[in-house]
């Protein structure tokens, strides 16, 4: 028995040495085109490609982890993964708790979609995902806020008439306006947030610098813009 404990301890130690290079990336997997689960059951999307490329440039071995949006930050600070790469806008609120890398998409507007033009955006019923910056914005704006647990449900709410419009990232909404189901952009775009970045623990400065450098190199050689264009997630730099 004692021997067993010793070997495990030794294993644990050696693992500790080797471990430095494996970085676990946490994402939601329900926010196409940013990140979603494809037909094969794997994580796919803009951030999947981006994350893999960043890890390659930073010389890190990366692994993907899915986590619920609601607990995505608590699980990061608790150390269950090392970085969040989930279309998370950089906000002051979040910045108090975690650190962000530099943004990998420019600050991008949020937008409303609705079933018809001329809905009352200031006083009508606006759906948003619980806990997003958009939900906070609608609560402030004076419109009636309806919150749903997932982004899918906010769209469903507009389709079935529960809500007049949805406020979400423009890039997330765009595909829904193109599928012929009658949803269309209404009103003006709303600038929210400071672009999207990777969330990293505050104590993990080294990792943050590595990713910062990798993002910078992708910005410099234009490959980041190419990826953004490919997945149509936002405007380019």
């Amino acid at each position, binding site marked *: 028995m004692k021997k067993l404990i010793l070997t495990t301890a030794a294993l644990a130690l050696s693992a500790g040495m080797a471990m430095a290079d494996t970085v676990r990336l946490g994402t939601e997997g329900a926010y196409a085109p940013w990140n979603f689960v494809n*037909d094969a059951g794997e994580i796919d999307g803009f951030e999947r490609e981006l994350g893999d490329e960043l890890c390659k440039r930073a010389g890190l071995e990366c692994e993907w982890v899915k986590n619920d949006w609601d607990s995505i930050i608590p*699980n990061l600070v608790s150390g269950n993964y090392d970085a969040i790469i989930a279309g998370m806008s950089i906000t002051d609120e979040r910045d108090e708790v975690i650190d962000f890398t530099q943004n990998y998409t420019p600050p991008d507007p949020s937008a409303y979609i609705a079933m018809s033009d001329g809905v009352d955006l200031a006083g009508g019923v606006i759906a948003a995902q619980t806990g997003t910056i958009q939900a906070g914005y609608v609560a402030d704006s004076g419109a009636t806020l309806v919150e749903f647990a997932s982004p899918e449900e906010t*769209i469903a709410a507009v389709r079935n008439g529960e809500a007049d419009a949805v406020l979400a990232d423009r890039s997330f909404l765009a595909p829904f306006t193109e599928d012929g189901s009658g949803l269309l952009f209404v009103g003006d775009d709303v600038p929210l947030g400071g672009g999207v970045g990777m969330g990293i623990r505050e104590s993990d400065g080294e990792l943050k610098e590595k990713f910062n450098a990798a993002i910078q190199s992708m910005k410099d050689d234009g490959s980041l813009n190419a990826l953004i264009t490919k997945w149509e997630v936002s405007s380019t730099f």
Partner: protein
Amino acid sequence: MHWLFYLSFFKVLLLLAITAPVALGFGFLGAMAARSHFPPLAMLGKGYIAIVRGVPDIAFFMFFVIALDQAFEWTRHKILCPEWTDPVRQGNDFIVCQAAKLPLGTAPEWVHETYGFFLAVITFSIVFGAFAANVLFGGMRAVPHAQLETAEAYGMTRRQTFWRILVPQMWVYALPGLSNLWMVLIKATPLLFLLGIEDIVYWARELGSFKNPKFTQYPHGDWRMWYFLALLVFYLGMTRVSEIGLERLMRRLSHGQATAGGELLRKETTA
């Protein structure tokens, strides 16, 4: 992708199969503690039962997994890295040395998933253990006192009386409560997704939700209704099968017991 959905049914069944005995174990310990003649232990047992039962299970599920994970890592940190001087809590961050990580950072993904599953099992077991403790506590008290006095008269020690007389007999009294508990446990499994397990509810939502033709070969509208219908049928089936199984078990346990059920069985066989 659908095989993940089917797999998740097995996950749920596996969780049930593991949780039931573990929760029973927790329950047994809880009931023993509550019966204890050592006041602090009895307080602990009763407190455990009362607090867990007074709170909706969902409230526990919301923070137990992270709490348990941190508790385990903290313990390992103290044991494995005594030379570590930095505080574990740095601002918002919870940092332990690499060797104390659970699972280790180098572990493959399946280890992480198994560990997550393990945490879910523990969480379920702690919650349902309290209910089981309550039922078993009642079962122990329901064993006729004369049985225990007789055992004492035969010169058995307290320990012997407990293990040889009380424990074998209490099951028949506890079984109705335990069957009930099993049913509750089945119906609590849709909350598994709260514990970070990709269970049947997770996949039903994921597969059933609107699929954009841009990102999949099989686009469809909102089909969640049909996926949830499948879940409904699954749960109703589970309930029915359990009802039948428990009925049989009750008959078997009642055999030769001094209860109404046992009496009925005796009459059936002698008539």
